[in-house]
């Protein structure tokens, strides 16, 4: 039996890198230190692999790659989409293919945390790595996120409990504020919980900005409250902000998916910038899928834009809403799709899935999921971080190398994508 130390978990944006994994006879025997989800993910990494299929029938890898290349090469407005749970090495191949076939290129951030990235295009963002939260943060704000259930070790490793360089007492050295529309296991850990009515992120951020900037808000209806929470409470939050040394605000989908999406985050970003006139303050997005941040990073260094890119003219163009996956499917304007390392069958509205079923879809995934049953071409791949190595980007942009601990019968998605790319190139040249 071999024990692998310092294994990087690939599930969420935390990328905990202290896992211990026991491997025997090319099988995972035990996972230690991981959260429940991470443990399950690694333990089940090799299970439920789909068969290679073309049009529902089992096929050879070569035949599947060939069919994939044919579909993509012929498509007049293809969609290349996914990437959030694979390595940046595979993502780089995805971009290359998208360029080559003049496709639309997008990743799941466009309907999850993408608004936070779009906000950075307008305002920028003052942020930090998670270690700054651990070592310095004496004020932590959780806003519209529930890490206890979604980023299970975030509180212990990074944000709430760890004893840091300048927070030797851990939790005792921190004031904690939670803003959410309901009580969650996370909000219960806070010193101050503001239960807000849904849909008012922007107003909250605006009023906090005003208070941070020393302005008195004026309520036309005379009710001194924002999002159902009295102004007193918001004033308390601002007092805490102004009294801290180093504040860190973690925001989740409750902020990015709230009404007006990216504009909320833009205002939150402005709030953080304003706070820096008084104290040091950072904000961090609670990125979900293991390497969804990597999609944004890779797409940005290769295409200039983090999501929603179109190559129909050969050069990258960017416009969320126009080239993001959900509205493109709403307009039913794509005629083929390459979907890798994401599961639209599980993550997209039902009508999106209905439309995808009407066009040829090539799907690469380590597992049977809710897309494999109907995709035109299904190619199983080695699970990254377990049977394939490569780079993942943590929620704070720290890149880590995920490891290969076991052999999979299947190639990595990086290798499959390279094969598809070569085939398309070959077809184009002959």
């Amino acid at each position, binding site marked *: 039996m071999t024990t692998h130390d310092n294994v990087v978990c690939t599930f969420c944006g935390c990328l905990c890198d202290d896992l211990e994994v026991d491997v025997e006879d090319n099988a995972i025997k035990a996972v230690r230190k991981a959260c429940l989800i991470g443990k399950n993910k690694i333990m089940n990494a090799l299970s439920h692999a789909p068969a290679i299929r073309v049009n529902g029938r089992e096929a050879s890898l070569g035949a599947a790659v060939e069919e994939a290349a044919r579909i993509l090469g012929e498509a007049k407005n293809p969609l290349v989409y996914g990437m959030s749970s694979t390595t940046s090495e595979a993502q780089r191949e995805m971009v290359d293919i998208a360029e080559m076939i003049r496709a639309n290129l997008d990743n799941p951030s466009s309907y999850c945390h993408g608004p936070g990235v779009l906000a950075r295009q307008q305002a920028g963002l003052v942020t930090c790595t998670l270690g700054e939260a651990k070592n310095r943060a004496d004020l932590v704000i959780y806003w519209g996120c529930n890490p206890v259930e979604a980023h299970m070790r975030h509180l212990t490793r990074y944000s709430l409990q760890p004893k840091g360089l300048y927070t030797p007492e851990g939790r005792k050295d921190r004031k904690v504020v939670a803003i959410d529309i309901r009580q969650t296991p996370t909000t219960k850990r806070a010193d101050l919980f503001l239960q807000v009515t849904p849909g008012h992120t922007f107003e909250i951020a*605006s009023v906090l900005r005003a208070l941070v900037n020393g*302005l008195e808000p004026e309520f036309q209806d005379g009710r001194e409250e924002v999002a159902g929470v009295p102004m007193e409470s918001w004033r308390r939050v601002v007092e805490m902000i102004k009294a801290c040394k180093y504040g860190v605000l973690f925001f989740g989908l409750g902020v990015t998916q709230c009404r007006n999406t990216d504009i909320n985050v833009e205002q939150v970003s402005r709030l953080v910038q304003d706070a820096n006139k008084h104290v040091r303050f950072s904000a961090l997005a609670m990125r979900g899928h293991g390497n969804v941040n990597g999609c944004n990073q890779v797409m940005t260094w290769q295409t200039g834009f983090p999501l929603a890119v179109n190559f*129909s003219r050969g050069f990258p163009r960017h*416009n969320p*809403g126009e080239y993001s996956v959900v509205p493109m499917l709403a307009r039913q*304007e794509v005629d083929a799709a390459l979907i890798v390392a994401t599961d639209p069958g599980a993550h997209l509205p039902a009508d999106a899935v209905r439309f995808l079923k009407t066009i040829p879809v090539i799907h690469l995934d380590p597992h049977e999921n809710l897309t494999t049953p109907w995709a035109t071409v299904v190619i199983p791949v080695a699970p990254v971080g377990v049977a394939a190595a490569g780079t993942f980007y943590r929620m704070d942009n720290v890149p880590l190398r995920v490891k290969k601990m076991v052999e999979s019968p299947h190639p990595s998605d990086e290798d499959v994508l390279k094969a598809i790319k070569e085939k398309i190139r070959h077809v184009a040249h002959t």
Partner: protein
Amino acid sequence: MKTSAHLTLIAAPDLPVEAESLLPEHISGKTADEILAMPLLVGNRMETVGERFTVSVVEEGGDGPAELTLTGDLTRFKRIGEGMTGGRLVVEGSTGFHAGAMMSGGELVITKNAGDYLGAMMSGGRIVVRGNAGHFAGAAYRGFNRGMSGGLIVIHGSAGNLTGARMRRGIIAVRGACGDLAGFGMGAGTVIIGGEPGVRAGANMARGSVIMMTRPKEIMPTFRYNCAGRPGMWPLFSALLARADCVFPEAGPETVFESYSGDFNEGGRGEILLRRSPL
């Protein structure tokens, strides 16, 4: 010679089409065959106008700028009238994204609906939409902080979110309802909304005006009430819009508006004018 051309769509395409080539100034002096040979990007392949349209061309006496009429369901056609500098472009039907974006002169008329980014970052000229417009009418493209910088957009129907977002000058009149964040972050200019406005109108505006005929659900608490009165500019806007065949019958020259200053997070030099409905 003044060229008038009329293109009729043969069948609505399934794929997005980019039709930035179809500008009045581009057809001026061209024959029917030359127009049919102009490029269109369909999906990721280059086609010609002739594969999608039939054309008739009339050369009239006199000088006058060219006039181009497009007929058909052009909902999937993007960039119609993009970058137009003069002449007149009439769409008998609906358009997709970016109609009249970046235009600097001339007139674009759309008889049905327009998609997102109508007149985005335009600097001059006039756009009239008889139906509804999508999001980002007159707004800035991603990353820019200067949206529309001149000209006039009249939308007889409703408009989507972020109408006039980050605009720097010019006038947008929406006869019907308007989405959220009208005039968001604007630096100057005027957005006039007849129907029901969405939330957060005028949020983060540094300067400029959002004029509303219908009371929004809430005025942002970063705006402050000034007074009720008859702003001297309203009759001027009213007269301008009347010339563009856009009338706000609920607001005559004697209409009283409530005035609010904001957004104080950005200095408070912008204003919201809200028509005081007669009791």
